[in-house]
């Protein structure tokens, strides 16, 4: 289908990128998976428009973005409250809405959470690179320009457009990003090699999100964790893996992580815990909660069933 609707970038914020479900089947070549770091909010943004799973949405980090609608169309927002306005009228951060041609959609700064997802009817259109439009700047792949480039003023985001019934997520179903985050971690890997006191600290002490955090991973500051295993032979790393380098401060690895690594790991955050962590700004308090594999799998399966089996 040809694109009939467009959003023109009036001002590019610090970071906004197109993300579909991710780039799969090429990790053996050293390519990262990409995709939305908050799969929960991304899925909701698409769902509010009735889009199929996997439609590309715009991941907006911090805000600072201003877009002009070139046609009348529905759009939807989900995730962080970045103070979004439509011609200076505040928008509900978890709902679909209609923009008229010429209206300005603007994102200010985060009041809760870190990343908002903007979905368009049918998804934003871009040329898939290695099977995906997921934008990975480190690999110069995907996104609106196919090169993983930063969104710039004057750029145009295209989609088929159309009007959808207004939809919104009930307030009681929305995550409260301002609260400390409790993150489910499925223990595994080298967890048995950590010292007892370190294991106790890992799951009972509060952690703070470090400034050195991005789409590759989120560093946590807190007690120093000691592991009897030193550097290991590098091996494949799954989404959410919590690795502990020699400085004893854990790093939760997200969508743009390197494909292999050799630091000992406590296990892996569940995909929904990764999503929650992606909304935590630097300094935010998080806690790790051990969860058994079976209930963690069940929770992820019901999430996928809800959003993917429309």
């Amino acid at each position, binding site marked *: 289908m040809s694109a009939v609707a467009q959003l023109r970038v009036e001002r590019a914020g610090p970071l906004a990128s197109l993300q579909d479900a991710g780039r*799969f*089947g*090429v*990790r*053996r*070549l*050293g*390519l990262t*998976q990409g995709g939305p770091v908050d799969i929960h909010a991304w899925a909701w943004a698409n769902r509010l428009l009735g889009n199929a799973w996997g439609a590309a949405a715009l991941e907006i980090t911090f805000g600072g973005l201003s877009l002009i609608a070139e046609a009348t169309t529905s759009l939807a927002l989900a995730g962080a409250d970045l103070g979004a306005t439509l011609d200076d009228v505040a928008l509900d951060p978890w709902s679909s809405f209609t923009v008229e041609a010429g209206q300005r959609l603007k994102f200010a700064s985060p009041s809760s959470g870190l990343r908002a997802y903007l979905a368009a009817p049918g998804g934003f259109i871009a040329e898939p*690179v*290695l099977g995906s439009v997921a934008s990975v700047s*480190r*690999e*110069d*792949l995907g996104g609106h320009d196919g090169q993983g480039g930063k969104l710039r003023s004057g750029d145009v985001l295209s989609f088929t457009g159309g009007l959808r019934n207004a939809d919104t997520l009930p307030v009681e179903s929305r995550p409260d990003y301002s609260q400390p985050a409790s993150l489910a971690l*499925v*223990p*595994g*890997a080298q967890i048995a090699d950590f010292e007892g006191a370190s294991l106790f600290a890992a799951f009972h002490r509060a952690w703070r999100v470090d400034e050195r955090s991005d789409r590759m991973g989120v560093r946590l500051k807190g007690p120093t964790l000691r592991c009897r295993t030193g550097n290991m*032979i*590098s*091996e*494949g*790393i*799954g*989404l*959410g*893996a919590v690795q502990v380098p020699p400085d004893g401060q854990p790093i939760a690895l997200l969508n743009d992580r*390197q*494909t*292999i*690594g050799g630091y000992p790991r406590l*296990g*892996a955050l*569940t*995909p929904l815990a990764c999503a929650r962590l992606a909304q935590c700004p630097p300094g935010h308090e998080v806690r790790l909660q051990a969860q058994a*594999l*079976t209930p*963690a*799998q069940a929770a*992820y*399966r019901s999430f*996928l*069933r809800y959003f*993917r*089996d429309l």
Partner: protein
Amino acid sequence: MNEALRAGDLPCLEVAGVDTWLVRLFATIDDANMAWITALMRRCEQVFGDTLIDLVPSYTSVLVHYDPLALRPDEARARLASLLADLAPDDTAAVGEVKELHVWYDESVGPELIRLQEHSGLSRQAVIEAHCEREYRVFALGFSPGFAFMGSLPEALALPRLETPRKRVPAGSVAVANRQTAAYPRVSPGGWNLIGRTGERLFDRRREGFSLLRVGDRVRFVAIDRAHFEGLGGDIAPVEERS
């Protein structure tokens, strides 16, 4: 469990996420591992079919990422366990393709050629010959798209990584670190010792298969002179020091 493969607690399945298993086959790096790794990957593709999302092979293991909605998690685990029970290695000699990388060994593009001579006690020529002499096996790809970790280097050339990594290693740089060697597909930071440069495009999104090198491939370095390197379109710009 597979008798031919059995050693200690290996092979084993480790939880790597709600939809991911790490199949650990070996405890140490060995050229012979790769015939098992490539066999395991092929069997996973057969057994999981469309429910397989991704595979990440590495020195001693394969990470298996499957679709937990299309395949029940207990069924995924059962399939891996049964696959391991009758896994047989590929024919070692037939594993991977043989690839040649033409390299211009020179101090201007490989400043650590000097350090390698001091470390090994070998002459410049002997260092280059030692690097070219054997066929290396690709153990893993990672760090950046198409970056192949190859080994094992002769003991004499085993030089630790730089204490302070460079912020900018030029594309095509051929490098060594400990018992491994690699070539940088693109400009990136890096802490390996640079000894030369290849003009090959190691990663190209327009190429069938994208990456020149794949896990299991056998690689031989071939020394060429500057004129030959330039003739192949190689970039002769020297490595910027303190970069």
